């Protein structure tokens, strides 16, 4: 396992956490390789969001190891550190800066120095400008760059948030239910976008939408009651009797 740890992008081993006696994660272990796109499924309360909270430093595990890029112990860092290391997180509910324009949202997400004084005296360089334009193009928001994020539709907010995560240039992207509330067309476009993004980085997607996961066509991890129930291709996982009983059958 030690060898596995040093080459992996994300490595969780025996991670447990409980809230007021409720075991949200129960000795959870899994590994994400560099450049891998991984889907995570599981019934409500399986610990998917808690797992993301632990990886991004919002919650500290009671026990277990979490390593990023084979060497960085994430349990010792806070959210800002972890974000600066290169882990991006997309929330279940689209979370963008509503009273900023689309452009400013991307500008704020741009992977630049984030201290008080570096932001206070920040001047936009031509390079930064080009980068923002490029990201706007990728998430198809160029035409709306001057609009307030508050005026975007639900799906557009999801895309803007993905754009912000791209601007952050993460090595690992955690995406929580990206297609919840999207139309079918938007859902399949999002699958294409995520596959595109995963070419240059690792992506972990938590999703309920089985059709979407089939579209992605990647390795699936099914969680239940805080630990891994099954792992493999979508067909393998969805034919597993334990998965059917715990998740699909319900």
């Amino acid at each position, binding site marked *: 396992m030690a060898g596995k740890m040093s080459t992996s992008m994300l490595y969780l081993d025996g991670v447990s956490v409980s809230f007021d006696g409720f075991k949200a994660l129960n000795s959870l272990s899994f590994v994400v390789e560099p450049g891998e796109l991984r889907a995570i499924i599981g019934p409500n309360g399986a610990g998917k969001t808690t797992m993301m909270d632990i990886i991004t430093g919002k919650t500290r595990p009671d026990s277990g190891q979490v390593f990023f890029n084979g060497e960085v112990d994430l349990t010792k860092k806070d959210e800002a550190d972890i974000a600066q290391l290169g882990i991006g997180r997309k929330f279940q509910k689209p979370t963008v800066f509503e009273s900023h324009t689309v452009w400013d949202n991307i500008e704020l997400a741009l992977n630049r120095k*984030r201290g008080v004084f570096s932001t206070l005296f920040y001047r936009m360089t031509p390079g930064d400008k080009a980068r923002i334009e490029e990201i706007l193009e990728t998430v198809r928001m160029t035409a709306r760059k001057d609009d307030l994020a508050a005026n975007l539709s639900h799906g557009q907010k999801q895309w803007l948030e993905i754009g912000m995560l791209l601007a952050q240039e993460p090595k690992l992207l955690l995406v929580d239910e990206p297609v919840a509330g999207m139309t079918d067309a938007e859902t399949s476009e999002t699958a294409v976008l995520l596959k595109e993004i995963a070419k240059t980085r690792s992506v972990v997607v938590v999703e309920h939408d089985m059709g979407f996961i089939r579209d992605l066509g990647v390795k699936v991890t099914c969680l239940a009651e805080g630990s891994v129930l099954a792992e493999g291709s979508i067909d393998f996982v969805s034919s597993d009797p334990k998965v059917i009983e715990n998740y699909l059958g319900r």
Partner: protein
Amino acid sequence: MISQMLLRTHEKKTLIVAFLILLAAAFVPLSNLLLAESNPLHIPGYLVPLLGKYLCYALLALALDLVWGYCGILSLGHGAFFALGGYAMGMYLMRQIGNRGVYANPDLPDFMVFLNWPELPWYWYGFSHFGFAALMVIVVTGLLAFVFGWLAFRSRVTGVYLSIITQAMTYALLLAFFRNEMGFGGNNGLTDFKDILGQNIQAAGTRASLFAATAIALALALLLSSAIVRSKYGKVLVGVRDAESRTRFLGYRVENMKLFIFTISAMMAGVAGALYVPQVGIINPGEFAPANSIEVVIWTAVGGRGTLIGPIIGAILVNFGKSIFTAAFPEFWLFALGALFVATTLFLPKGIVGTVEQYFARRREYKAAGETEKTYQEDKAAALTATTASPQAAE
């Protein structure tokens, strides 16, 4: 060139308001000192410190707006920083009395002689120098804000909990300053000032200069605030206000962002207090009263939080109203203030300036929409002419 630089870092309306304030800085003193009393433009002597007081309140409201309007930190204790700045200035003014006090003691302020204090406490050292006192105005307020903010923001105390502990902070200071043992004059505070920078504090010229100094300080604070909120840092602040966790997960240290603006804001409030004390002639623990800090919140809300001009207008309007109202129906003022706050929350949630800005933004949008409609109609007309014209062209 300078004007170009100003336009790049500030919005036009901010510059206009800053200019108007500077205009007042020149006009009010000149009119008071030079114009004859019969002149309709003459500003009577009693009005100069009153207007100066309004501007101090405006500066205090602007300071509060930086943290509340732009960063979402509802401080219900900004009066504490105002009062501390005031006390620092008051201590300097006390030391200027020298042996002209009731007890004619050249070394000790009257209240210390009265309490039989043998010597000046160490924390009064240096306050006989204006420069030191002025430095303390920003050092003491900044330090308190820094320590308080460091503890509160690092522990992620937010929302109503933070408001309550800021309120507790100002209340604790109120109780502390009431104690004679603290060495700040207890219940009576500091008063009977004589001179400031060698000038008689009651003289018309001094009062006019104090007004000008206040107006200039307000204009500079407005420009500084505008530079801050229009920088990328300012955008991050608004991000913290709107979606704190998003800001955190983008890699910003939210606690540092909050701490910086909270400290700057406290220093500005301190400067406001320091300018206030020589104009009203007294500082006592009553300035720490929690109700004072809440009033500042009302001024800011009425004017429009999250706009820089709003709190200035709000503070001046509400206090002007207060001056008139308390003269006519003194016992009803608090009811009027409460009603004003309820009415603002219900009917003008964005405050006066926010509502006006929204109206203009809507009208611009409407106009822009009208224009695209017009060009569309023109295009259609042009296309029609083209199609009707083309067969002839073909012939």
